[in-house]
C-alpha cells in the first residue's frame, strides 16, 4: 500500500563559504569580551611564560591583563606621551616600551617605576624588542635609526643609520642573539648582524612596511605593507616567495598560529584573514567592528586578542570541549518529537516476539492539508510568516506542488487584500532569485490573471504591483547586460584560442566556459 509521499523540499546549494575544518576551528570561539581603552591600541604582546598575561599598549599606558580577567592585573603609566610597542622579555620578567618622547623605558613586570631609561633617539620610538640573549634591546625610531642597547649599564652599543624613512617595525631572531630585521617606511626590509656595522641583506617590499614576522624556523620572513603581505626566503638571500593581496586596506599586523600552520593578517579594512602556510590560500576570515591595529594569539590559540582604532580591545576565548558539545546539543531544539522516537532504536533479542504496529507517518502541516486536498489552507500554512521569511524554499516547494497538481489557481483565487499583499511581498522578495524564478514566474502570471479585474481597487496591492513591475524591468535589464557580456567573452575566447584543424572546437569550449561564469544558465546542483 503506497503511503503519502510528502512534498519534496528542494535542497539548494549554500552560496558563500563552505564548512571546512578551518571554519570549524576558527569559529569555535566564544563571543568576544570587549574592553574600552584610552586610545588606539597599537600593540599587544603575550608573555612567553605561564599564565600568559598580555600587555596592551594604548595611548600613554600599558595594561597587563591576565588570561581570563577583564580588569588589568597591572598598569604601567609612567609615560610622558603616547607609548608604543610594549614587549615582554623571553623570561616574562621585564617589559620594554618605546614612547613618543623618544625615551625607551624598561620595566620590571612586578614593579611600577621604570628600571632603566634609554635616551639617545631624537624622535618617537615605535619599535622595541629584546635580543635572544636577554641582555640587549633593539629599538627603531622615527629618526630613521635603529639602535642596540645594553641593559645592565643602559648604554648604546651600536646605531644603524641605513633606513631613509621612519622605522616602524622590527623583529629579533630567537635563535641567534646577533641577528635582527627592521622594516621601514622607505619600503625596505633590512637584516642586520650586530657583529657587522652594516646591514647584511636588503629586501624591497614595495610599500611602507607596517609589520614583520619571522617563522619559528627563521628561514622565512613575512612582511606586511600597504595591501600586500609578502613572504621572503632568507636562506636564499631574501628571495621573494609569495605575494598576497587579499585586503583592501593597509595590512597592519601579522601573527602566526601556535602550530605554525596558519598565518593571520589584520588590516584597516576591519578583517582578519587566515592563510594556510603551505599554499597561502585564505581559509578563513574574521570581521571586526573597526579598523584593526594590533592582533595577537595566545599560546595554543587559546584566545584571539585584537586592538582597534576606536580603542576597543576585543578578546575571544576558545570554547572548552564540553561547551562546544553543549551548543550542538542545544541546536536540536525540538525534544518533543524525540520523545516519540524513544525506544524505537531498541534491537529485538532472539526470543522476543515482535508485535508490529502501523507506523504513523510524521507529516508537516502543509503536507497534511495537501493530503486531504485542502489546497488553499496548505498555501496559507506555507505562507506563514516564519516559513515565508526563514525558509522560502518550503513556500516555493508548496507552490510548485500545487502547480503540479493543477490546483494552484484555485488556491490563489478568492483572497482578501491583506493576504494578497502578503503574497506579493513574498514575490517581490524572491521572484528574481534564480533558485525560485522558474516556479514563481508562472505563479505571478497566474495571480495577475486571477486578480486582473480588481486591479486599482486597493492602493496597497497596486503599490506592490508597481514595485513588482519595477523589479522585473530592472532584472530584464540585468539579463540583457549579462547576455551582452557573454557575447563579448565568446568573441574574446574564440579569437584567443589557437585555430585547430578541425572546425570550431574552440567556440564550443568558449561557450562552456562563459556559461559557467555567467552563472544564470548553469544547472543548479544539489546533494540529497
Amino acid at each position, binding site marked *: *500500500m*503506497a*503511503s*503519502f*509521499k*510528502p*512534498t*519534496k523540499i*528542494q535542497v539548494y546549494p549554500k552560496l558563500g563559504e*563552505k*564548512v*571546512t*575544518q578551518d571554519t570549524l576551528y576558527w569559529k569555535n570561539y566564544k563571543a568576544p569580551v570587549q574592553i574600552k581603552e584610552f586610545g588606539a591600541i597599537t600593540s599587544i604582546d603575550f608573555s612567553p611564560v605561564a599564565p600568559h598575561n598580555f600587555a596592551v599598549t594604548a595611548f600613554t599606558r600599558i595594561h597587563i591583563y591576565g588570561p581570563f580577567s577583564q580588569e588589568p592585573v597591572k598598569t604601567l603609566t609612567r609615560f610622558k606621551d603616547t607609548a608604543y610597542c610594549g614587549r615582554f622579555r623571553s623570561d616574562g620578567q621585564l617589559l620594554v616600551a618605546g614612547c613618543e618622547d623618544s625615551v625607551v623605558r624598561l620595566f620590571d613586570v612586578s614593579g611600577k617605576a621604570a628600571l632603566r631609561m634609554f635616551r639617545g633617539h631624537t624622535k618617537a620610538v615605535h619599535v622595541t624588542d629584546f635580543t635572544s640573549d636577554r641582555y640587549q634591546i633593539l629599538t627603531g625610531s622615527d629618526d630613521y635609526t635603529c639602535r642596540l642597547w645594553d641593559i645592565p649599564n643602559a648604554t648604546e652599543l651600536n646605531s644603524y643609520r641605513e633606513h631613509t624613512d621612519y622605522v616602524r617595525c622590527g623583529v629579533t631572531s630567537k635563535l641567534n642573539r646577533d641577528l635582527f630585521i627592521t622594516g621601514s617606511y622607505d619600503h625596505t626590509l633590512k637584516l642586520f648582524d650586530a657583529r657587522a656595522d652594516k646591514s647584511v641583506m636588503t629586501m624591497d617590499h614595495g610599500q611602507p612596511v607596517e609589520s614583520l614576522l619571522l617563522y619559528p624556523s627563521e628561514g622565512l620572513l613575512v612582511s606586511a605593507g600597504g595591501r600586500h603581505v609578502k613572504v621572503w626566503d632568507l636562506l636564499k638571500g631574501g628571495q621573494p616567495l609569495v605575494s598576497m593581496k587579499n585586503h583592501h586596506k593597509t595590512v597592519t599586523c601579522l601573527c602566526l598560529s601556535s602550530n605554525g600552520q596558519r598565518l593571520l593578517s589584520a588590516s584597516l579594512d576591519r578583517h582578519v584573514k587566515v592563510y594556510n602556510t603551505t599554499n597561502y590560500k585564505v581559509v578563513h576570515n574574521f570581521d571586526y567592528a573597526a579598523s584593526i591595529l594590533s592582533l595577537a594569539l595566545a599560546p595554543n590559540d587559546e584566545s584571539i586578542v585584537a586592538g582597534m582604532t576606536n580603542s576597543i580591545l576585543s578578546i575571544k576565548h576558545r570554547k572548552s570541549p564540553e561547551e562546544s558539545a553543549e551548543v550542538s546539543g542545544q541546536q536540536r531544539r525540538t525534544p518533543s518529537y524525540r520523545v516519540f522516537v524513544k525506544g524505537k532504536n531498541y534491537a529485538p533479542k532472539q526470543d522476543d516476539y515482535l508485535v508490529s504496529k502501523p507506523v504513523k507517518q510524521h507529516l508537516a502541516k502543509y503536507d497534511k492539508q*495537501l*493530503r486531504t486536498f485542502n489546497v488553499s489552507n496548505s498555501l496559507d500554512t506555507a505562507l506563514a510568516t516564519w516559513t515565508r521569511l526563514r525558509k522560502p524554499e518550503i513556500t516555493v516547494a508548496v507552490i510548485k*506542488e500545487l*502547480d*503540479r*497538481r*493543477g490546483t494552484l489557481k484555485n488556491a490563489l483565487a478568492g483572497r482578501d487584500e491583506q493576504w494578497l499583499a502578503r503574497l506579493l511581498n513574498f514575490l517581490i522578495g524572491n521572484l528574481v532569485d534564480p533558485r525560485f524564478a*522558474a516556479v514563481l514566474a*508562472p505563479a505571478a502570471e497566474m495571480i495577475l490573471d486571477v486578480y486582473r479585474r480588481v486591479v486599482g481597487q486597493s492602493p496597497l496591492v497596486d503599490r506592490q504591483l508597481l514595485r513588482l513591475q519595477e523589479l522585473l524591468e530592472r532584472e530584464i535589464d540585468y539579463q540583457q547586460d549579462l547576455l551582452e557580456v557573454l557575447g563579448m567573452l565568446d568573441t574574446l575566447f574564440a579569437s584567443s584560442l589557437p585555430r*585547430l584543424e*578541425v*572546425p*570550431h*572546437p574552440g*567556440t*564550443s*569550449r568558449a*561557450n*562552456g566556459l562563459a*556559461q559557467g561564469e555567467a552563472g544564470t*544558465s*548553469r*544547472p*543548479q*546542483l*544539489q*546533494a*540529497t
Partner: protein
Amino acid sequence: MVEHGDIRVVHRGGSKINSREPVVTNDSRFLLCASGERVKVFSTSTEECVHDLRGHTDLVTGVLLRPTNHLQVYSCSVDGTVRLWDFTDGILIKVQLDYCSVCVTCSWLMFDIVCMCVCAELFQLVAVHLPQSGDQLVEAQELSAVLSNVSSNPAATGFGRGVRAPPLRSPNAPPGAITYPKTDSPHLLTTQRKGGKNTLMCIACHPKDDCIATGHEDGKIRLWRNFNHKKEYTYTTLHWHHNAVSSLRFTPEGTNLLSGGLESVLVQWRYNQESERDFLPRLGSAITHIAVSPDGTLFCTSHSDNKITIIQSCVKVSAVIQGLVNGESVRTDLMVDPRSKSLVLNGKPGHLQFYSLQRDKLLYNLDIVQQEYIHELGLQQFEVVKVAFDAPGNWMATVEERKPKAAEPEINLKLWAFDEQTQSFVLNTTVSAPHEAQITSMCFSQAADGQTSMLVSASEDGHFKAWQLPRSAYEGPSWSCDFVGDYRGLAPQCCCFSADGSLLAVSFQEVVTVWSPASWELLTTLSQPPKAIRDLCFGRLGCSKYLMGTTASNLLCCWNLLTCSLEWSTSMDVSLLLSDPLTENMAAFCCQAESTDLFVFKPSEPRPVASLKAVCSGKVTRAVFAPREEMLESCEESSQWLNRSQLYFLTQHMLFIDDSVAMTPFYLLLGKHRKQENQDSLTRLSAELMPLPRGSLAIKELLQSPAHVLPSTSVLCSMFVESLLVSVADGSEESKHAEEEMESEKEEEDSEGEMESRTPRPEPASPGLQSAESAAPALTKAQLKELRRVKKLDHGWLADLLLS
C-alpha cells in the same frame, strides 16, 4: 536433438493478469487469473505462482469455478475452446470446442453450462450448453442466442439469482439503459437523464434480493429495485466516486456492496444503510475488477498496473501479486541491470520496474519521481524517459520529464548509487533542469577500471554535457557538470562511448563528431550525407575500432576509426541497432512492410552472421541483449551468436482492435531463445519435444500429470517408446526442411549481395563474401550427415535404456 540450432521466437511472459477479474477458490487458498494464453494459479498467502495451466492457443478470456465441483475450473479463450482443469494438480481434464471459433474476439464465462461469447461484429450474448460426456474432446452443439447488441465490456453484464436474468447494457437503446430478460422477453430500464454523463459502466446483482446495482461514468452508483414490474421500478443513488465506477460487487451474503474506480480506493457500502461506508485507500492504482471469495473472507482487486491485491475483509492488504507493468509506452529503452541481470523499464507512473527474465517475476519497483501521484485525468505527470547504467552497476542515471501546458518542460536528472546493504539504488544527486530542452540520449562511459565514471547527456537544446563525480573531502560525493560541448549549433541526437571509454561519438544530424573525453578535444568528424543519423554504436572487443551508424535514408554505415574513413555501408531500413556487450556481434532490426527482419553481423565484415526473416509482425520498438546465466556451447554458425546472451525485444502490435476489448495486449514481451540440444536426461529431452507441432499427447500427459493419477509404468512404457519413433520421422522431415531453408537463405544472401554492390563499398570486402558463401553450404551438408549419424546412435542408446 531434432531441432539443431533452430532459432525461434517465443513468448516469455509478462502478460496481463488484470484483464479479467480473478477467481478465488472456495477454501480461499488459491487465486486463479487469466494471464495471456495461460491460467495462473497463485497462492493467496505466499503470492507465489503454484501452477501454470497451459493449453490454450490464444488469449484466455474467462475463468470460472465449476459450481458442481469446487476443485475444477473452466476457462475459455479466443481460440474457441472451453477447457476444464483440475487446478490443485494443474492438469487438463476436458476440452470443449465452441462453435464460433472463428469470430470470437471476446468472451467470458458466467455459468457452468452457459458460455457467453460475443462475436466481433454482432456483440451477441450466446448461451452454449456444454454437453456432459466423459470424452476428452467434446464439441458443443447446443447454442442459443439470448440477446444481441450487448456491450463489449464484460463488467456490464451480470447475472441475477436463481433465474437467468442477466441485465445488460444495450447499445441500440440510448446509452445507459439496462435490458433484462425476465423469462423470455427483455425489459428495458432507462437510466439516461438529460445532460448527465451517466453511461453505464458496470453492473452487479444482489445474491438474495431483487436488486441491481449499476455503476456510472459520473461516479454514481444506482440501486434498482422492483424492476419486475414494468415502469414501476425505483432507484436510489449513492455517490462517493468522483470518476467512473469501474467495478461493483456484492459480498456473498449480500450485506455489503464493494465499488472501486480510478481513485484507487475500495469503498464498502452497507446494504440498506448506504450512508455508512468504509474505505480502503491508497491501493496504488486504478481498480479494474473486484472479486470476492465464496466465503466472503477475502476480497481481490485487480489494478490497472497489472497487479492483484488480496485484502482480508476490507481492512488489511494481505498480499500483492504484481505482474509486469505495461505502461502506456516504454519510453525508457529496455535496459539490463548489470548486477541483478534483470530487465529494467518503465513501470507504474514515476517508477522503474526491475523484472527478472529468468523467473518471469517482478523483482521490485523503484520510485524515481518520489512525488505523490494524483489520479486525475488530463493532469501532466512526471514520466521517466531515460535510464542508463554504468558497466559494473554501481550507478544508475534517470531522467524524468514533465511537460505542462504552455510552459517550459521540467526535466530532472537523477543519479542513483547502489547501496550494498539494502541491495537497492539510493538517490545521490538531483540535477534540476540539466538541459533546457528534451534529453535525446544518455550514456555512461564504459571504462573498465570504474575509477571515474562519466555520464554524457545530449539534448535538443544543442548541447551535450558531461557529468562527473568529483571526490569532495568534506561531503559525500555528488555529481557535477564537467563539460558542455556543441557543434555548429546543431542538436545532438545520439551519443555513444567506445568500449574502453577513450572515445565519445556524438551525432549532430548527419555529422558524427568524435571527442576525446580525457581532454575534451574534437578529434574528428565523420559524415554520411544526406540524412540525419538515427543510431550510433561502437563495436566491442575485437571490433572496437569500428563505429556503426544508421541514417534516416536507410543506410547502415561502418566507419573505421583508425583510418577515419567509411569501411562499408549497405542500404537497409534499420529501425533499431544494438550491440551485444559480451561479444562482437551487433543486431539490426530491419522493418519491412508488416514484418521485421533481424540481421546479426560483425562490424568487421558486411556479411551477416545470421539473418532471420520476419521474426515477428509489426515494428520492433525496443530490444536488448541480456546475458545468459550460463554460457551455451554450440558450434553451429548460425546460432553461435546466441551462446552468451539472449535477445529480447518488444513489439508494437498495430492491430486495429477496438480499445474497449481489454484483452488485447498492446505490447508483447517476446524472448528469443534457441532450442538447445541435450541428450543426457530423459526429462529434459521430452521437455524439448513437447512444443513440437505434432507433439505427442501421450508424452505430454505422462509428464504433466502427477504420479498418483497415472497408470502403472509398465503400461506406459510401450506408449513412450512409440512416441519416440514418431519423433524420428519428424526429424527426417525437419532435416529436409532445413535443407530447403538453407537454399532459401542462400538466395537471400545473393539478393543482398546485389543490393550491396549498388552501394559504394571498399573493394577488399567482396571477395571474402564470395568465398564465405561458397564454403557455407558444403560445410552444412557435411554437418547434416554427421547429424543423422548422431541421431541414430542416440535412439539406440535410448531404447536400450528404456528396455532395461
